[in-house]
């Protein structure tokens, strides 16, 4: 009897532990099934909470330059996940891959950035840190474009 209870409790714990966070604000506000590259000049870089924001002046297909507002992870998460955001400098020409906002024009969510010299910058997210902690390992976030 007690063994049955123990097994049931362990099974429930494992099931709950394996459940993923079903939704978060990125998925609500941005269409993660789509992504495209924007190449332009970094106008503003605000690494902050609750969301970082990058303003990129990029030329559209019509040849007109306009500002894109690119949302990114919160500052604390970027620090905790050791993302080297300080490598981006105002005035640099970069290519940022973004997912578009579902409702707002010229707004996207940061997926990765290709900096001068081909350096790739990205944040692997909360799940990657949790996986590393669970395994007792350091966070492994390959800096590749996605």
């Amino acid at each position, binding site marked *: 009897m007690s063994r049955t209870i123990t097994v049931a409790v362990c099974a429930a*714990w494992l099931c*709950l*532990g*394996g*459940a*993923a*966070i*079903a*939704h*978060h*604000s990125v998925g*609500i*506000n941005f269409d993660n099934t789509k992504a495209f590259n924007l190449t332009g000049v970094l106008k503003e870089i*605000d690494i*902050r*909470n*609750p*969301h970082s*924001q990058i303003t990129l002046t990029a030329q559209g297909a019509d040849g007109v330059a306009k500002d894109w*507002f690119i949302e990114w*992870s*919160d500052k*604390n*998460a970027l*620090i*905790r996940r050791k993302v080297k955001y300080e490598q981006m400098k105002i005035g640099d020409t970069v290519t940022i891959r973004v997912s578009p*906002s579902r*409702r*707002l024009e010229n*707004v996207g969510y940061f997926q990765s950035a290709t900096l001068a010299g081909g350096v790739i910058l990205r944040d692997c*997210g*909360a*799940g990657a*840190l*949790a996986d590393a*902690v*669970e395994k007792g390992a350091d966070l492994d976030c390959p800096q590749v474009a996605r």
Partner: protein
Amino acid sequence: MRTARSSGLIAVCTAAALLVVLPVPARAQAKRPELQGVWIVNGTRTDNLKLTPEGAAARARYDHLHDDPAMRCIPATFKRVMHTPSPPIEIKLHDDYAEINYEFMDVHRRVPIKAGLAAKDAPYTVPQFPHLGRSAGHWEGDTLVVESTDLKAGLLDSLGDPGLWQSDRMQTVERFVPNGNQMQVIVTMTDPVHFLEPVTTTFNYLKLPDGQLLTWDCVPEEAGYERFNENAPKQPLPQRNAQ
């Protein structure tokens, strides 16, 4: 084979002997210190979500760009706070109270632990944000149980279960269950205005080795999506006390 069986028998007998020798309160409290530390969320699950017609109508009206008080740097509820995937929480236990600190929005909660103390008679646990209600804690074995009332009507959650609202009849029970380097926080929410039956959300946490909370320092003008759309309507928000 015989050796293995003998070893097993010895282990069982030793455990049984410890159960006899140790006083019951000591056994019941052995895992409490495991709650202390800095924790990151690693999966959540909501069960028994059955909305009343009013709850369903409120959810249908939800606008994710405008309705979340976090867009003004205000934490809607502890459920909303814990559903934020990146910022961790910290627990420190004291003799007669628990500190539960949430990195998200710099929420510092101080829950009195006293058997028999009713939540309605307890203080606001986050004076800066009184809409988060009054809470009283007690121990059930190794589980810290926190009961809350006097919660203000408003948005309940924008993450995990986006678009849920609560009335001022909402009452919650949070159970902090230690398990080594893992912890569960099981939140039971009773609100007859929005829920047909009590709803339960379970948050699974992992202890962050050498973890420390950082300051959040949220600035309202930078938090909302109005920075992209200045004509967006603004919703009434819970009052935030001056610091």
